[in-house]
């Protein structure tokens, strides 16, 4: 069995770690090359024209995995109202039409999540004992948590570093080192080492960066190729980025803690209630709620990311400007036509607006209009 997976941020590290710990020689993991313009071109070429960007990108990944000989493909499936519910059906058909003989294993992300992940594990490991699965999961999750935690620090350092690009370099090395770690101890050591390096990056003590939170559709928020490194670009402009959503958080709650009755979005949903009363699928509800919460927490602005024509996020986009908690929202929509420079210009204008607004607020002139 040769297993292919689509990319989403550094999610491939989990799969890699799991296979490394549980591999029994029968199954081999094929990680497609990092998402590139070729991936996008492939995806665009074979997808329905108006499909959303995550569909096209993951399809491109899967085709590239098939080219490398994958015969089993793993993909997420939702049962909500969003298009994710149709991904597997659509992509299976397209890949079969292309002449690849591959079948899909699905990971349910909205219902029966635990059952589906356990079934997936069983399929992949040919019945390894549960304790072994759990220890492998622990190891894989350790990597993910270490990286996500470090990313949060990087977001802060980027905004205030004296020489732009230092934090990025450290982070890139850290991803490599943590990815290559073979044991839990090695992960911990690498994390400590690179955190120290981040501390040592020279920072501007007088810097007072504006604070922006990133919300929106999970795939474009998490995948740096899909969102054109928006966090890095914001960092270059001297903006401190905060993002609640992360892969580790998603896995932790969605796959495990939700079953114990923990709802990580409880506060956010409560905040969204006056404006959006119900779940509209995808991450629309959370986007509205997060805007309200962040406005209360004193952020300077919100950057809202979504794939072009994303249904839940359009609902959120329509509602967000009218909330009583008033902070500027910039919605950035991604599709295959999007140009990086266009995005940067938008961000520059937005950041200027935030700085201006902050100055006015501090000078006591609170009224904005």
């Amino acid at each position, binding site marked *: 069995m040769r297993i292919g997976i689509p990319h989403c941020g550094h999610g491939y590290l989990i799969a890699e770690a799991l296979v490394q710990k549980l591999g029994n020689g029968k199954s081999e993991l094929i990680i497609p090359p990092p998402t590139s313009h070729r991936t996008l071109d492939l995806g665009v070429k074979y997808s329905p024209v*108006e499909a959303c960007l995550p569909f096209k990108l993951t399809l491109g990944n899967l085709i590239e995995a098939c080219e490398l000989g994958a015969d089993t493909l793993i993909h997420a499936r939702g049962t909500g109202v*969003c298009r994710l519910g149709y991904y597997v059906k659509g992509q299976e058909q397209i890949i079969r039409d292309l002449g690849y003989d591959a079948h899909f294993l699905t990971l349910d992300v909205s219902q029966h999540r635990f059952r589906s992940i356990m079934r997936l594990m069983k399929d992949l490991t040919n019945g390894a004992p549960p304790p072994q699965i759990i220890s492998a999961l622990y190891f894989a999750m350790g990597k993910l948590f270490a990286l996500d935690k470090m990313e949060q620090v990087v977001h802060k350092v980027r905004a205030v570093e004296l020489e732009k690009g230092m934090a990025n370099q450290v982070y890139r090395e850290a991803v490599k080192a943590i990815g290559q770690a073979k044991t839990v101890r090695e992960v911990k050591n690498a994390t400590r080492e690179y955190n120290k390096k981040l501390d040592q990056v020279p920072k501007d003590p007088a810097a007072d960066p504006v604070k922006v939170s990133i919300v929106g559709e999970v795939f474009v928020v998490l995948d740096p190729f899909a969102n054109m490194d928006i966090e890095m670009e914001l960092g270059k402009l001297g903006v401190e980025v905060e993002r609640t959503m992360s892969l580790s958080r998603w896995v932790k709650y969605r796959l495990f803690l939700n079953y114990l009755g923990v709802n990580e979005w409880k506060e956010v949903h409560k905040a969204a209630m006056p404006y959006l009363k*119900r779940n509209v*699928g995808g991450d*629309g509800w959370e986007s509205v709620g997060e805007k309200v919460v962040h406005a209360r927490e004193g952020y300077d602005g919100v950057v809202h990311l979504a794939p072009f*024509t994303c249904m839940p996020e359009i609902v959120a*986009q*329509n*509602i967000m400007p*009218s909330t009583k908690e008033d902070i500027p929202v910039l919605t950035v929509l991604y599709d295959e036509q999007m140009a990086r420079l266009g995005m940067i210009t938008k961000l520059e204008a937005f950041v200027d607006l935030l700085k201006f607004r902050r100055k006015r607020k501090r000078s006591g002139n609170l009224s904005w209009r």
Partner: protein
Amino acid sequence: MFKVGIPRALSYYQYLPAWKAFFGALGAETVVSPPTNKAIFTAGNSRAVAETCLPVKLFFGHVLSLANKCDYMFIPAMRSLGKKAYYCSKFIGLPDMTRALVPECPPILDPEIDLNKGRRALYRAIYDLGCHFSSDKSRIKKATEQAEKVHSAYRKEMSAREITPIQAFGERHRGEDKLYLEPDISPSLSVAVIGHQYVIYDDYINHRLISRLQAMGGRVFTPEMAEQEALDIAMMKLGGAPHWSFEADIVGAGEYYLEAELDGIISVAVFGCGPDSMMIDMVRRRAREFRTPFLHLSLDEHTSEGGLVTRLEAFLDMVKRRKRVCV
């Protein structure tokens, strides 16, 4: 007497008779917004963000045109009308979007229709809705039953007489005006028009597609002219259990009319429709297998009448020629 406003958009075409019966039995009057016109179109466009799809933008326009003509606005949040079959997110967020974008809207009645939670939850939502008008439990129950009866009669009437919802309502959209197109008396072609009801029956955004086809000598079939059961069967055959109920009917109709060996299929979608972008592809594939001509029209607020007519003429010419050659 309370006046309940019903915007002439989105689910209006599917459920108007049932809603009318329900509110009527509870002693409320229903007010329907006028057919889409330029004012409604512009108003709707100016309220919503640009990426919103055209029918939803129009919906806000219709709400605006009703804003000071009624005491309540009826905007159900449609989540699901069958096991594991959903509506698009925008239907679920419709009441909240309206609240955000049309602040001058009267109080909104927004029952959540979710059959996934079971019939009990549905009746509960309907009961809560009825409580706005009557405190008499049995009266609400009777109104619900009546609405159900009217709805199934309406659905049956359309398939039995092969008529469109507009004909079933007994009204003409742009009736006796100078734009009226005389249908060909002896149509030589049979064409299926598949698409959302709020697109294929809204003459303003589709530039009178159906009457145009009829005038060009086509006999037009729409999804509503087939029986619901037949559509469900066709859908199951094509793609298994549907994910979206609205689109399941459209794709089911595509398959049904392909099997009925019509001369051509025209699918009409609006730009940016999420479910359609994934589902219409299935019909396109099937049409290729059947070797039936297939035309996909994507409409948006910039669609020009001239361009549309040219495409229709070209398509019908092609269908006609094919038919001559084949026979």
